């Protein structure tokens, strides 16, 4: 069936810088975000590269210790606040959410654009802190080091993070309201694609958690500037209070970073196994469950801080409980692959890699949740390996899966499949070589945030750094071939993957108003044809 295009695609609808910088179209805003977060990703990656080069030798004297400390701080801040948190929601979510629910745009397009500008302003503050010598507190800003002792640009950085938090809040608000009020006719809650459920759960966390980070940062800034004493023991303050406030947001924040990827998986696995999802309700509710329980586990970062043992036990128990919904998702995806007809296009390769690496990352979380073991591995490279398996092996691979999956819809072009698969495989191998040795290093006792280390740790560090160079290639390749595809890629039709979902029922790239007429939904999601003799 040919689509008679009466309206120009969103890419053609207005030319010139102003039409992009003043756009209200969620699809253009998604691209503004895409360009920005890719920039931040490579900035954060440069810091990671410098860290890994420094750690090639036990003396770790590539740079002065103070400089190294600013490297890991900037790496963490940039990757978390300016890449991971916005990545899937602000790029893929912004682009795809209205399409998936059959709407013309998000509920608040102007607020959507505002969120991008806020993101940029926050980024500029943080980058300027870097240019003025950086900040050396670690992304966790523990007091009293950050509030009293550090001689770096704490306040400037904290302002930048405070600002970018509002970008997160506005995006979350937009997604929640849009999902509630703008679903197409017939699109009931339980006919929504699971990606929407994941974005909704993510948005709940963004909206409820981020304000607490704002409060925390305000208090740190006030303490630093006005010497208040809230976190200063010599003035009756309590530095542990900071940790509670900080982790109350920052633990749910990690679920902001992973839930959207978990949502992408449900889209890619159903499409490339061409089979209806197994356990739709379980996956939908598990996303909400993770969001809720995720707010109740923050104390597992503080088992050795002097926190009460009984409070610690509550946090430990809840941390084990929050692992169960994630496990359920993995099993549901496996049950979807079973009996499917599996194609190994790039999104599927990234998805299979995701499942494996997320499983490892999730299981190693159990080691940290077990209080008795956490005593040993807390604040070592074991933790670093754990969260990189989830954030990089999980969230970033999920982002790559989604980016490749929706690339034809976003650009109207197919990327070169051979290069896509090659990059996926290189990334998977490079990732494991980089981060698996770090589990061993951690259990051996190498602490985090060390620029130098005892000589016997060198071999494992060298392996890790070697892996990082391979991983870097795995990330550079997509930049090259995706850009190439914009001009030279095969033209994609409306539905190159023959996928279900409303986003594939409109041209690639879509017109500005998304649909010619508001769609009406009559089917359950993921209604792929089966071999049973029945009316499909």
């Amino acid at each position, binding site marked *: 069936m040919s689509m008679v295009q009466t309206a120009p695609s969103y890419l053609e609808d207005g030319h010139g810088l102003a039409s992009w910088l003043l756009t209200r179209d969620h699809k253009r805003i998604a691209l503004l975000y895409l360009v920005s977060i890719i920039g931040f990703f490579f900035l954060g990656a440069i810091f990671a590269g410098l860290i890994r080069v420094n750690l090639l030798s036990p003396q*770790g004297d590539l740079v002065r210790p103070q400089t190294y400390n600013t490297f890991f701080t900037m790496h963490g801040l940039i990757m978390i606040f300016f890449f991971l948190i916005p990545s899937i929601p602000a790029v893929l979510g912004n682009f795809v959410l209205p399409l998936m629910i059959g709407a013309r745009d998000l509920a608040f397009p102007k607020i959507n654009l505002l969120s991008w500008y806020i993101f940029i302003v926050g980024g500029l503050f943080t980058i300027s802190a870097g240019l003025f010598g950086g900040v050396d507190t670690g992304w966790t800003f*523990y007091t009293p080091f950050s509030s009293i002792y550090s001689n770096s640009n704490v306040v400037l950085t904290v302002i930048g993070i405070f600002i970018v938090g509002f970008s997160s809040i506005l995006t979350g608000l937009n997604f929640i309201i849009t999902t509630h009020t703008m679903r197409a006719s017939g699109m009931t809650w339980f006919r929504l694609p699971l990606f929407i459920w994941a974005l909704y759960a993510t948005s709940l966390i963004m909206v409820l958690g981020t304000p607490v980070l704002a409060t925390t940062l305000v208090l740190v800034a006030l303490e630093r500037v006005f010497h208040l004493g809230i976190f200063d023991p010599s003035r009756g303050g309590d530095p542990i209070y900071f940790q509670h406030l900080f982790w109350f947001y920052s633990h749910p924040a990690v679920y902001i970073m992973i839930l959207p990827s978990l949502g992408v998986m449900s889209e890619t696995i159903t499409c490339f196994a061409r089979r209806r999802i197994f356990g739709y309700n379980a996956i939908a509710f598990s996303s909400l469950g993770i969001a809720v329980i995720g707010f109740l586990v923050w104390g597992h970062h503080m088992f050795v801080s002097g926190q009460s043992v009984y409070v610690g036990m509550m946090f430990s128990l809840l941390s084990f409980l929050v692992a169960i919904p994630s496990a359920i998702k993995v099993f549901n995806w496996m049950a979807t692959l079973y009996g*499917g007809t599996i194609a190994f296009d790039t999104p599927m390769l990234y998805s299979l890699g995701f499942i494996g690496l997320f*499983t490892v990352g999730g299981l190693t979380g159990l080691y940290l949740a077990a209080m*008795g073991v956490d005593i040993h591995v807390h*604040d070592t490279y074991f933790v670093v390996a754990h969260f990189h398996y989830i954030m990089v092996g999980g969230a970033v691979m999920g982002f790559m899966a989604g980016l490749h999956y929706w690339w034809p819809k976003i650009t109207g072009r197919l990327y070169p499949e051979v290069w896509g698969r090659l990059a996926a495989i290189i990334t998977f191998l490079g990732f494991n070589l980089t981060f698996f040795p770090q589990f061993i290093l951690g259990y051996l006792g190498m602490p985090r945030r060390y620029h130098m280390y005892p000589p016997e740790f060198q071999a494992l560090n060298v392996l890790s750094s070697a892996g990082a160079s391979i991983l870097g290639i795995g990330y550079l390749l997509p930049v090259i071939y995706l850009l190439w595809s914009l001009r030279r890629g095969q033209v994609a039709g409306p539905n190159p993957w023959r996928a279900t979902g409303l986003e594939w029922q409109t041209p690639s790239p879509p017109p500005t108003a998304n649909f010619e007429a508001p769609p009406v939904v009559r089917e359950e999601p993921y209604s792929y044809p089966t071999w049973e003799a029945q009316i499909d």
Partner: protein
Amino acid sequence: MGAVLPLFPPVASTYARQEDLLFYFLVAVTLFFVLLIFGSIFFFAVRYRRRTPDERAQPTRPNLPLEVAWTVIPLVIALVIFVWGAKLFFVAMRPPAQAVEVTVVGKQWMWKIQHADGTREINALHIPVGTPIKLILTSEDVIHDFFVPAFRIKRDVVPGRYTTAWFEATTPGTYHLFCAQYCGTNHAAMIGSVVVMEPADYERWVRARTSPVLPASAGAVLFQRLGCSSCHQTNTNAKAPALAGLFGQQVTLADSRQVTADMDFLRDHILTPGKTPVAGYPQIMPTYQGQVSEEQILELIAYVRSLARAERSQGGS
């Protein structure tokens, strides 16, 4: 191989042996699920690969027993790990009564350690095999963390309060001591050694040190010099409570709360007397903030604790 590519830390304490058991169990669980998932992926990828472009999948049918199974079984495994981990944690948090105390003051970027007999060490801790050691830790500045991988123990070292940790070494040797809470520029240089010695060797080491001053004795001298004795006399008077026998007792505060006179209490009352005023006394005690170091506070506390012991031995024997 161990020197070039070590894969496992030394096992040098009673706790290390116990903790490693849970670790092995976790590794077994990890291996099981990793093999299950990776294996299934591989198997499905081969078995269910798309052979023709229009091939269709099997219908998706609900399977409640399967869903219940893969919810309940991981839950049970998780709870087992939780209980085991919590029990281990209690062990780590409960020093045996006969543990020998060692005080540790961390500061940017060194460890200042004092044994119960007054011996001082910097960035090193010599201990005998088989004797439980209880560390009392505090910081002069930012939060640090006392970490000995070979013992599998770790505890944050916090300014403004005392934290405790304990271990019993089982194997002679020299082991790494790391600071494991980022504390500024030379965080990675805030390292040292824990030297575990056979009891005989340890005795020889102790005797070879110059005669140290007992913390309580040093504390007694400070108590006079700083003027504490002018108000805190042998008997309770209107100005200040007597300190003999105070340590470990319940104290009533001005706002009617009851607290235990532990080390944190004594430290607070030396540095910030007005923070939690005691009932029944005028708030006239001056603050000693800035006049005493963390080590001196520990000596004063040792002195006050010794008063309790003297009272009991006078009355009891």
